[in-house]
């Protein structure tokens, strides 16, 4: 930590000298570009006019011509289209490192590749990792133009990170094998579902499976600060033979009948399972609505700071938000899109209707405590 602070100090000193150098030449730099005098790595929001407005950001980003993203699978949340469209629109080449990687690997890459031109500019991580990164001083605070449309409990007050897209824990099932339609967590204890119900992975490893346990807790008398009833619930499902604890739940295990009922994010059930299982149905359990969102953050040591900021502006534009929706992910500004009538209606209707009421999320303390409870108790109680 001390070392990284020293590096930042040196960088800051360096940029200060550069800025001073630029300031001394009233012509505004030899290149003649107005944007060159702006240190985009320090810009925390755009201004309506002047050197840090949208036009200058585009100019600076196009000059960088490069954006390093990480762990964005092209078939995930429509990222393939989003990256292609962004590249075409701004003539910026995108390098996507380890597309199938995890949030943990993103954080590691930001730390270990610091100072290299291939280091990640922006990340898309689970909230615990966004918070960890903020604690470690990895992010450059930035507020997109539509900042006020992001609910306050879904962003860092300082602008270090901000929710991007997510969805609800949902139950997906193949009606050709599941004769009685499940509607809730309570309904899943039906003996007809013997050897049928799966999670996508282990809740000690995968965010989605962890969320499913949290959701089950909410349905069984638990709360954000008490996830234990969720673990008990799955232990019960296992004891009566309904729960199949495979860690490779997904389209394949639904297709081959290993887990004809799969508890997963609604957007992943819609995007990954629905296309390959005829008549596949998705419901948000009536006795629990648990939503979770991923977060965007810009690396403080981004090699392409302007392109990173332009990428965020693009993602939080109406177009970017609708692109996520077309990938079945619920964009964080969805309610604004709906109320302003700019939402992509077809994409919106493909998802199960969202439960009424405003979004609520566990606090970081609650989340961290719940993670430790699941880590300690999952194998002990469910195994």
């Amino acid at each position, binding site marked *: *930590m*001390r070392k990284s602070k020293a590096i930042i100090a040196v960088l800051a000193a360096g940029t200060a000298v550069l800025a001073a150098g630029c300031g001394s030449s009233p012509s505004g730099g030899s290149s003649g570009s107005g944007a060159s005098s702006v240190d985009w790595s320090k810009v925390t929001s755009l201004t309506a006019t002047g050197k840090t407005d949208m036009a200058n950001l585009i100019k600076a980003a196009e000059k960088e011509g490069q954006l390093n993203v990480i762990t964005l699978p092209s078939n995930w949340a429509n990222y393939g289209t989003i990256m292609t469209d962004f590249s075409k629109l701004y003539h910026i080449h995108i390098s996507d490192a380890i597309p199938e990687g*995890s*949030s*943990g*690997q993103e*954080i590691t890459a930001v730390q270990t590749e610091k100072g290299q031109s291939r280091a990640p500019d922006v990340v898309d991580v*689970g909230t*615990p*990792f966004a*918070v*960890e990164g903020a*604690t470690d001083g990895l992010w450059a605070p930035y507020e997109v133009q539509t900042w006020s449309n992001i609910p306050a409990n879904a962003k860092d007050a300082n602008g270090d990170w901000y929710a991007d897209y997510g969805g609800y824990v949902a139950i997906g099932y193949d009606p050709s094998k599941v004769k009685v339609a499940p509607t809730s967590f309570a309904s899943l204890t039906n003996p007809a579902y013997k*050897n049928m119900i799966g*999670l996508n*992975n*282990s*809740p*000690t*490893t*995968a*965010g989605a*499976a*962890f969320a499913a346990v949290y959701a089950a807790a909410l349905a069984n008398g638990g709360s954000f600060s008490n996830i234990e009833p969720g673990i008990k619930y799955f232990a019960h499902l*296992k004891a009566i033979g309904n729960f*199949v*604890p*495979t*860690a*490779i*739940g997904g389209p*394949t*295990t639904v297709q*081959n*009948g*290993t887990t004809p009922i799969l508890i997963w994010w609604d957007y992943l059930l819609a995007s990954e399972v629905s296309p390959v299982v005829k008549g596949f149905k998705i419901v948000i359990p009536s006795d629990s609505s648990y939503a979770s969102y991923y977060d965007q953050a810009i690396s403080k040591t981004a090699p392409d700071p302007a392109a990173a900021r332009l990428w965020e502006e693009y993602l939080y534009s109406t177009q970017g938000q609708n692109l996520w929706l077309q990938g079945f992910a619920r964009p964080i500004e969805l309610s604004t899109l709906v109320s302003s009538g700019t939402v992509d209606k077809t994409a919106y209707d493909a998802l199960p209707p969202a439960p009424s009421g405003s979004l609520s999320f566990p606090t970081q303390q609650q989340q961290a405590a719940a*993670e430790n409870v*699941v*880590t*300690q*108790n*999952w*194998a*002990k109680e*469910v*195994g």
Partner: protein
Amino acid sequence: MADSSIQAVAPEAAASGATPGPATKIIRGAIRWSGVLPFAVYVALGLALPTIAIAIGAFKTNAGAATLGNIDTAVHGTYLTGLRTSIELSVVTAIVPGIFGLLIAYAIHTAKRGNVLRRVVITASGVFANFGGVPLALLFIATLSTTGVVTGWIKDIFGGFNIWNHGFTLFNAFGVSFAYMYFQIPLMVLVILPALEGLRPAWREAAENMGAGTWQYWRYVAGPVLFPSFLGCLLLLFGSAFSAYATAEALTGGTVALTPIQIGALLNGNVLAGQENLGYALGLIMVVVIAIVMVGYTILQRRAARWLR
């Protein structure tokens, strides 16, 4: 070996009078040792450096301060259970395939050289011993899950008998052990075969000439000669099972606590954030366990080598 030959040369050279200077000796020594340089570099980069990094990380907090907290957490609660289960699972999946593998190896050992079946078994063992990971889990799911092919056959043959309704499952420690047999038995065949080949027919003939029966030959001659090799092979199987990861993870979804899976959750997971150093601590404990196993293996191999040269 290299050491003794260097020493053997030196006195002779001194006596002949035409003494090469110490510099020449050093150069000669350097040339002799340069052959292992690539291997030394490989070991340093691939084994020593990561081990040191893990050892250091295990005793650090996220902020970089020294601590014993990670080790403390690693030997309590679910992590202790994980270590215990890992060792138990590895012991079972070493002994059972060890016995099966020995029997199969003995069967092909007694077959004539050049026998087709013998060659097929050896080649197939080489392939199957290296098959593992998620593909192996998928293979078992495709054949033996509730809707698997073999499950279906059993149903057809035995009038609707569904093994899954009678206690069979792939998705627990038993299922994992079962899947491990798939690569452990062939591995045992491969590693024990050279030891069996080392049993000389002359010993048997000599024993029989002195009136020993089959039981006595095995009890007093072949058994004691083979035993250290057999134990050594079991230790190798133990190490193989102890470090296996993806198959168990895919089949049990974390419901069976195993140390490698826990390390995976800490280092690569999407749930636990900022506990990487605990992962290093678990890794260090695994390194220690494997180191103990390797020392045991070396000692047993040395004993076995006396007879099987």
